[in-house]
């Protein structure tokens, strides 16, 4: 019995980690191009409700995931236009996106209140493999999106460090003037990866909705996971493969209080445990919004800085 709970905790933390991996990868691509999108939480919420509505209306989970991802990309595109085309302050634009996204999601979510999605994403079946004790439910008990998230994280790492476009992406985040001098368009690269980032964040939000929550709980649907994803990118040092470990760790920490409560272990107050990831996030975000802090953390050098070509 006890063992079972711990296994379930591990399996559940991997589930939370899936959302975190997708959202953090989205933020990572955005930030590697030099754009700081603090609006991840708002993007996720809007995607979540869009996915819910689409799935509810069509009866197709997959259509829900697709619509949710596209909505995420559109939300990120708003940020891209504000910060790349109009060179707005990216911190302000990002915070505005959170407020806008939360408001929009709550508005869209009115008809969804009290409803649940009838079909949920089911874990893949690996036949006998899923029945292996301990390892079975954790490794082979996940759904396709989780495996997809892991796959994307590994591919992203190869993309960033082993390909020519990846090199160009990293260069854009570090030194846009150099990229510009090579005849590459900084604006195009930044808009493209902010958009792609939004797609991933949107997928994370949609999946959270359809596979985890199954019911719309307004802002507590995402419950700050968007912010945690931002912090995760910082802790991962802007490296996709480290995001996997970070996400599992955060996922476990988020899940642990529930298990402790269920097991009636009261050595550590569960509220304290619940607070920890958010505390870590707060610290990471403070560091992220200060230029000195960004340098210290090894952030892309031009992160948050609009690019203006030297006018002669």
């Amino acid at each position: 019995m006890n063992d079972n709970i711990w296994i379930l905790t591990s399996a559940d933390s991997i589930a939370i980690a899936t959302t975190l991996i997708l959202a953090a990868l989205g933020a990572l691509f955005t930030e590697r191009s030099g754009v700081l999108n603090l609006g991840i939480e708002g993007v996720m919420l809007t995607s979540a409700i869009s996915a819910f509505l689409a799935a509810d209306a069509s009866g197709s989970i997959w259509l829900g995931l697709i619509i949710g991802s596209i909505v995420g990309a559109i939300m990120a595109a708003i940020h891209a236009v504000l910060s790349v085309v109009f060179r707005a302050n990216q911190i302000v634009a990002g915070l505005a996106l959170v407020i806008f996204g939360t408001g929009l999601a709550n508005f869209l979510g009115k008809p969804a209140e009290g409803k649940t999605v009838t079909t949920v994403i089911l874990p893949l079946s690996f036949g006998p493999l899923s029945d292996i004790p301990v390892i079975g439910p954790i490794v082979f008990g996940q759904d396709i999106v989780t495996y997809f998230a892991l796959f994307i994280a590994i591919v992203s790492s190869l993309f960033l460090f082993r390909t020519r476009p990846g090199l160009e992406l990293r260069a854009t985040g570090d030194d846009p003037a150099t990229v510009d001098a090579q005849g590459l368009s900084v604006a195009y690269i930044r808009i493209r990866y902010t958009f792609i980032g939004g797609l991933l964040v949107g997928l994370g939000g949609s999946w959270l909705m359809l596979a985890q929550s199954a019911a719309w709980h307004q802002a507590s649907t995402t419950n700050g996971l968007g912010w945690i994803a931002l912090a995760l990118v910082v802790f991962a040092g802007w490296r996709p493969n480290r995001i996997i470990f970070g996400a599992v760790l955060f996922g476990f920490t988020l899940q642990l209080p529930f298990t402790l409560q269920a097991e009636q272990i009261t050595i550590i107050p569960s509220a304290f445990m619940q607070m920890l990831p958010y505390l870590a996030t707060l610290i990471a975000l403070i560091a992220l919004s200060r230029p000195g802090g960004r340098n210290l953390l090894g952030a892309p050098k031009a992160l948050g800085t609009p690019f203006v070509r030297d006018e002669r």
Partner: protein
Amino acid sequence: MNDTSHEVAQGSHHLGGVAPTALSAHNIVKRFPGVLANDNVDFDVRAGEVHTLLGENGAGKSTLAAILCGLYQPDSGYLLRNGKPMHLSSPRAGLQHGIAMVHQHFRLVDRFTVSENVILGSRDLGFRLNRKEINEQVAAVAESFGLPIDPNAVVGELSVGQRQRVEIVKALYQGAEILLLDEPTAVLVPAEVEKLFDNVHSMTKAGKSIVFISHKLGEVVEISDRVTVLRNGRVTGHVSGKGTTDTRELARLMVGRDIELNAQRATHPIGHEVLQIRNLSLSINEVEVLSDVSFNIHAGEMVGIAGVAGNGQRELADTIAGLISPASGSITISGAMTTDRGPIQAREVGLAYVPEDRLGMGLVPSMSILDNLLLTRDRKVIVDRTSIRPEASRLIDQFEIKANGPDHLARKLSGGNAQKVLLARELSGGRSATKLLVVCSPTRGLDVGAIETVRSLLNDARSAGQAILLISEDLDEVMSLADRILVLYRGAVVHETPGATASLSTVGAAMAGLLENGGV
């Protein structure tokens, strides 16, 4: 990369026995709002030669170079590559025709390795990067032109000279046949300049063409096969023949009149001690930027600080100006301790400061000339513009500032005029008469005419008995103006010599850190 045939060009400049013209520009006209930057300019460069574009800032040489590499498009006129017409719509198009620009401010990503930088933007590579293969290719290109460089070195850890080499290797890797070098020596120490010139020679031997852009007469004479002089957007002269050129003649072509750049060190009495610095040390982010610096300056004396950028010069100036508190040591201006007392206290006792960053630290760009003058003058609560207006107008005349009067916004001034405003403010005295003037790179980016004015203003201030600390990366400037030269290397004074007897090679070696400490 460039598949146009290398048949002998039929360009008009082609003479028997001379290498064919690789690139030529004809009747180039380029207008910017209110400025005719290039007025019917002709220019050509042959395979295997160094052709220099000489001119003051604003003479149009950078505009012409930008047109040659595809950054700008001319309003009229045309370009020929190997005798065939071509149109360059972007720097990328320029590269496709084998023309590359090495910018003065390097276009390199500090965190990337040498080879990552070299291949950045290269379209010939596939999606995947094969690091080993790329490193080999980059090393091979570098070797073949005598530019040894480690492809795996991180650019941010290289010296300025090495970074420049990376830029050149990058251009060569991308298949450049014609390299435009924009003020390449501005950032180098003398030893590095020599190396650069060696590299230029090995490139020209391999048939590459070099367009060398400069305003430094000495090096132009040394490196160039031919020189084209630009002034006010027009070609004022062609000079050819290596080593036979007279710098005086070139200077005349460049400025349009005879000039005296080497303002003579006036013989004048040196007075009492104005600035005294004792054992000044400073660390920023746990990096030691000033280490046990001690020196003094007397009234009527100009002390020059030579050194490669980033060896503590700026921090030294900021510390004297009271903007930074040192970790230890003391600063005394006119007998008053100003260490840790802040900038206002330093100014109260007679400090004037011309920082390197004119529009960032020196002037407020969004304010008028008048308001900028007021900054150091008036500490009343209510701003009194009327009483200072006549003086502002007088200073504008006296310093020959090109502006529409005292209300002209600082950001709308050219570099030279902004510097003159700054000097006008600092030299004319603020709340108290100027006793010590600290100037950083006072002539950087200015044209020859303005340089002459600024240097003679500094000389006048010295003759008037002010103590001057001249901090400049322009070694010629320090050598020709300063009574005493201190060389700063890694925050320490490693060499001190009287200006009159200073030797370029010794000072240069000290700047490069090749002299042992205390080489007096």
